[in-house]
């Protein structure tokens, strides 16, 4: 009983940590973008204010049941994938579900959110949402392939499909997979550029072109759920890459340093890039990232 309570408390703590870190990173990104554009920029806690304001707005939109479930699906996807990620290497406070094969499960559950959002956006009947969803799914076809290839390379190389297993191998040997299989790391990082959907890959929610795409009919509390699940999901992606390639983190400070450095890759790449068109985005992912993914698998099999 006590351990169950502790587990629930730990899950809530994990969620709050992910929410806070994700939101702060989003705010810092806005600040950095503003500084690069020679602006003063909003304060780093601006995202928290926005989220609270969105939460306090009324919601009088009704487009049917799927419209309500869409944001819930994204939230479920984010939270479930968060529960499978070991936040720290020796985690007392941040328990996670793990079993043999959870990495494969994670690949599926990370796609579940966008699919749920596609269903929700489809019911709003807004043409911008439909275009955004089409673009999002096409882009997902692009970046999922190098991403899955990078993970398969790791699974083949170390003969385990468990995230904690991969993490333990790194901790015991002291070698990060980032250097053990650099091709898999490159493929994963390039794929994560697309996962974050910052420019040049912001073709899904292009605000001036598509009126924010799938979110265009969602205001107020819907947008709050989407925003917070996006923040949690950003934390999930960053921590997963840290766990798989950078040897995890033994305490929170190291975790924050590592994830922030990782986060700067899509942010800085995004600041200096204009937006791609859909086919450019897909061909980008089927270029070098796919090549690195293939090399990673060949490297994992033969070396």
């Amino acid at each position, binding site marked *: 009983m006590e351990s169950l309570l502790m587990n629930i408390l730990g899950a809530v703590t994990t969620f709050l940590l992910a929410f806070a870190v994700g939101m702060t990173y989003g705010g810092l990104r806005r600040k950095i973008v503003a500084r690069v554009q020679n602006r003063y920029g909003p304060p780093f806690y601006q995202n928290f204010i*926005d989220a609270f304001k969105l939460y306090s707005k009324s919601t009088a939109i009704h487009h049917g049941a799927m419209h309500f479930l869409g944001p819930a699906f994204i939230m479920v996807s984010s939270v479930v994938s968060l529960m499978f990620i070991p936040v720290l290497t020796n985690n007392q406070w941040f328990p996670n579900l793990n079993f043999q094969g959870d990495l494969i499960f994670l690949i599926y559950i990370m796609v579940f959110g966008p699919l749920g959002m596609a269903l929700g956006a489809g019911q709003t009947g807004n043409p*911008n949402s439909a275009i955004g969803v089409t673009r999002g799914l096409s882009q997902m076809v692009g970046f999922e392939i190098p991403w899955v290839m990078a993970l398969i390379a790791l699974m083949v190389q170390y003969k385990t499909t468990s995230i904690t297993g991969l993490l333990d191998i790194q901790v015991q040997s002291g070698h990060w997979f980032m250097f053990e299989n650099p091709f898999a790391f490159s493929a994963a990082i390039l794929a994560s550029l697309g996962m974050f959907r910052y420019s040049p890959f912001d073709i899904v929610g292009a605000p001036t072109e598509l009126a924010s795409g799938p979110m265009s009919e*969602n205001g107020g509390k819907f947008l709050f759920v989407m925003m917070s699940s996006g923040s949690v999901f950003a934390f999930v992606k960053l921590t997963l890459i840290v766990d798989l390639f950078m040897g995890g983190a033994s305490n929170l400070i190291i975790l924050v340093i590592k994830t922030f450095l990782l986060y700067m890759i899509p942010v800085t790449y995004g600041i200096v890039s204009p937006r791609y068109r859909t086919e450019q985005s897909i061909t980008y992912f089927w270029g070098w990232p796919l090549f690195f993914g293939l090399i990673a698998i060949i490297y994992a099999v033969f070396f």
Partner: protein
Amino acid sequence: MYNDKNKQKIVDIIKNAARKHSLWVLAYGTGCGAIEVPATMTSRYDAERLGVRGAATPRQADVLLITGYLTVKTLKRVIRVYEQMQDPKYVIGFGSCTINGGMYFDSYNTINQLDLYLPVDVYISGCMPRPEAVLEGFGKLQELIGKGIANGAQQYKENLDFYRENQKKVIKNWDFQDYNW
């Protein structure tokens, strides 16, 4: 326009503090005023440091910024956009044209007084208002929100008959559905 009691609960004070520092603006750029909005948002004047940010659709927006004159044709669309926005929502009338018609006061197809058709919280005078004036207008709106007296949306709900009558007088082919919150 002003609250009778002018009293706020503690919850409202917290909510209003968040609202006033996070204004998502839907700029309805029909007139020449649309050219001042990019200047306000970009690096020289940078409205984002005050929490003012562009919103993509009416569903996400808090502030409807009406930049310039409104013809009868665009007024119909503006009313529709306004009614799609979610509470709490505010309207800023931007430029002389929204106040008394400006230079289009004797035009055959432009309305002269915006506040007969929509509840305006803040007017920004000028033809054109410079970005400093626009930021001043946003500051005034933030002040009103902080005091809890920027309740144009509530006014619209309470006096819906008055607004509907005025709107129907101008818009001849009225084919709206009833407003439901």
